[in-house]
């Protein structure tokens, strides 16, 4: 854990019908397991849908990044409904629009382009993790 004890909570959307949902999930793993494991914690959206107490505590006491597959923004809405402090919302579709060469395909298993899109997304979020943690000190969360 980082020095101040705060982590950035990362909530991907659990989308199961399109490759964009899988990219959201893969990007969250990339961020939490590979790029910033010391500064991030993964949140299962399924737990939050019914307001699981531990998951609620995680999103209300830490700055939250949501990663959604499409414009329905299910992760952002679900976290906010649970009094989570969403400081940064990402939609995979937006990232793809900036990287049209990385067209994701496959839902159970992403193609190489989809995996790369997830890495790009995770890398972009990683650059603002310090900023998000600093926002906590300014009182952006309920901690």
């Amino acid at each position, binding site marked *: 854990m980082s020095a101040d004890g705060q982590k950035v909570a990362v909530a*991907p*959307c*659990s*989308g*199961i*019908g*399109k490759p964009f*949902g899988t990219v959201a*999930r*893969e990007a*969250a*793993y990339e961020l939490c*397991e590979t790029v910033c494991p010391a500064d991030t914690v*993964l*949140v*299962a*959206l*399924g*737990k939050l*849908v*019914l307001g*699981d107490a531990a998951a609620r505590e995680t999103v209300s006491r830490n700055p939250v990044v949501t990663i959604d*597959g*499409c414009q*329905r*923004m*299910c*992760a952002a*809405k*679900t976290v906010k*409904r649970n009094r989570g402090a969403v400081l940064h919302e990402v939609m995979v579709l937006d990232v793809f629009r900036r990287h049209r060469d990385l067209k994701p395909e496959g*839902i*159970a298993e992403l193609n190489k382009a989809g995996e790369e899109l997830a890495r790009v997304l995770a890398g972009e979020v990683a650059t603002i993790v310090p900023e998000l943690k600093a926002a906590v000190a300014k009182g952006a969360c309920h901690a």
Partner: protein
Amino acid sequence: MPELPDRKVGIVACCGEEIAEGTVSRLATLKVLHDLRPDDTVTICLPLFVAGDAGECAFARVHPTIAVDGCDLRCAARATEALSGKPAASLVVSAVVAEQGLAKPEGRRRLDDAGKAAVEATATRLAALVDALAAAGDAGRAAESAMSAVQPQARNVACACGRGGTPAKASGVA
């Protein structure tokens, strides 16, 4: 002869990101949707019950639905019941693993061999449940079709995520 409604079996998976069993729930569901019973099943993203419109939230009231959960917290089953409608059946990956004497799955991001075996076992059980619900639905639709001539009612359900886009009609009597 009235047209028989095409009511597919719905599957809602918890897709839990934190543990390997959640990943198994997702991959087993996808295997049934894409490979084992593609013509008989639809799905919806679980959080769409919170974020979606009225049609999406009615998913489990329109489709006989199976909830697939990674562990006995049963997030998908409980959320489906609370926000959409009571699932017709429920499956828990950790219970399937225990019943069949399989090794505990590991690797939430990339499943190990035990995880892949759990996907196969869960998908097989899930497909059998789909068959049972589809058979029960056929019997029910035969009775409904006679009534639909009295007062037909059609509802559309489309999953924003793309897999449940087939319009589903449900006939009933007000």
